[in-house]
């Protein structure tokens, strides 16, 4: 039996779907509500009262700003590195044939399949062996390992759908390598790169495990939140930050989703 477009789903299925969605999203809503609670030591339900004072408190806490700024800088630099390396790697793997191509393609994707704790321990011992002190750049390096994969995956999929003779056509019409990249390659992969970049940014922004091993004493937003949960005072500040983090990561991911969806249509129309 095949379900037709007009056919209505049975009631039981509807309820099950609704429960599933609630289960996934209700806890997040709870986090938001606790951001407005008047009780600061522990989370009690229902909140004894509602207040917006925690937004002001959060605004005036320098440790929040430090963590936020570190996270944004790390995410931005990791994404930038990933965009350059991921695109170059995708171009090499999809446009040329060379010895070990499949192996390289696998090795590039591996970091995202590997548990974060393995990547983290590996990087930490590598840093220790090489006598590299923890710094901003050690965090960036750790994040770049999985950001490259996200960009690479997006770019390689787009490259595969882009006709190889288009690049030859551009050269044939008098464009050198740089002009070909600027006028033909980039416009065709731009949405894929934007989507990959946004996903990479979001991944880096809320990464905990690899960061714990590569940050030393520095605190990114997720690490700061973990520490904060142990402290007994001003707990709703964590929730305010959580709300901001959700918005900061959700918007790019949504945008990335819409961009790649449109990208399919653009790439398909060329065939």
């Amino acid at each position, binding site marked *: 039996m095949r379900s037709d477009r007009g056919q209505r789903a049975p009631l039981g299925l509807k309820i099950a779907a609704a429960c599933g969605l609630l289960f996934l999203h209700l806890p997040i809503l709870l986090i938001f509500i606790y951001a407005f609670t008047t009780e600061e030591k522990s989370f009690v339900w229902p909140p004894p009262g509602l207040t917006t004072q925690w937004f002001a408190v959060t605004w005036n806490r320098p440790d929040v700003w430090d963590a936020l700024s570190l996270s944004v800088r790390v995410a931005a630099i990791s994404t930038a590195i990933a965009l350059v390396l991921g695109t170059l790697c995708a171009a090499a793997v999809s446009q040329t044939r060379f010895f070990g191509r499949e192996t390289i393609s696998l090795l590039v994707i591996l970091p995202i399949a590997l548990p974060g704790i393995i990547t983290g321990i590996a990087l930490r011992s590598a840093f220790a062996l090489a006598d590299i002190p923890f710094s901003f750049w050690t965090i960036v390096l750790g994040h770049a390992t999985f950001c490259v994969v996200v960009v690479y995956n997006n770019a390689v999929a787009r490259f595969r759908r882009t*006709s190889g*003779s*288009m690049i*030859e*056509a*551009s*050269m*044939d*019409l*008098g*464009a*050198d390598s740089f*002009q070909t990249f600027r*006028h*033909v390659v980039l*416009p*065709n992969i731009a949405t894929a790169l934007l989507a990959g970049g946004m996903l990479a940014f979001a991944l880096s922004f809320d990464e905990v495990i690899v960061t714990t091993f590569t940050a030393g004493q520095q605190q990114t937003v997720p690490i700061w939140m973990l520490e904060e949960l142990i402290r007994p005072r001003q707990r709703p500040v964590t929730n305010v930050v959580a709300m901001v983090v959700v918005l900061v990561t959700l918007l790019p991911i949504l945008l990335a989703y819409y961009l790649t969806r449109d990208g399919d249509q*653009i*790439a*398909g*129309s*060329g*065939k």
Partner: protein
Amino acid sequence: MTSAVSFKQVSRHFGSVRAVDAVDLEIAPGEFFAMLGPSGSGKTTCLRLIAGFEQPTAGSISIFGDRAEGVPPYRRNVNTVFQDYALFPHLNVLDNVAYGLMVKGVGKAERLKAAEEALSLVRLPGYGARRPGQLSGGQRQRVALARALVNQPKVLLLDEPLGALDLKLRENMQEELKSLQKVLGITFVFVTHDQGEALSMADRVAVFNDGRIMQVGTPEDIYQRPNTRFVADFVGSSNVLPPDFVQRYSGQRRWGSLRPESIRVSSATSGDGVAARLVGTNYLGATTRLALDADGLRLHAVVPAGTALPAEGEAVMLTFNRDSLHLMDEPA
């Protein structure tokens, strides 16, 4: 006179594969030149050598007297119409056509005007605002043609230009390409595996096999006077006759070629001719193709539609004009 394209002992080897092997070739300016051959025969590699997408392993190539080895595609005054057209999906038709002028730094107004003219030339005026995805296969091909011609190339390369079109469209485009080439006077080099296309459009044809040129000549030369068994068989599926057979009719011990349409088939059982048996008929519309067995030698004859035919399996007598038996150079 300087050749438009000149190959001197050009080879292109990919590892142990000899895609193009010691090819000599002279294409005259203003010529409509066809490279004909089965797939993998090296014709497309030759085209890519002229375009600059491939560099020769050995030998030298010159285009209008200028050495071409080491010159990248974007510095050659040669343009290509690709088999899959390779239009840019993110640009509209007008910007696609104007692309070559854009990268050369021609001003916007000027290049769009030139692009509009090129579109009129290929009979697509007013299509500039559309996206390549909104065009039919035939229209896309015209856009690809306009995009190449707008750069006023000295040589236009066409890679199986009509391969993706249906029969009717293909016939129209053949005539159109031919008249376009006459009007523009540009040297056209086109690659095809379709012998009918090569014969009907080209001034001269080069027949490729295994990375080598088997024969170069006018369509009549190639068709009527093939010099090897391969050419005879590939171009127009000629009957290739073994030396023993040829000796009986011409006195010379050489391989021979006999066009299927030169064979007359009669139901007579005695008299002058080659005794054979009809083993199959193949109705082709305007003609009928007969498969014949002459004492173990498989021959084909093509007779006009409406000819009274003997039944399959019957004995027939084959006759042909001695002049139409062509003796090939290939050693027996």
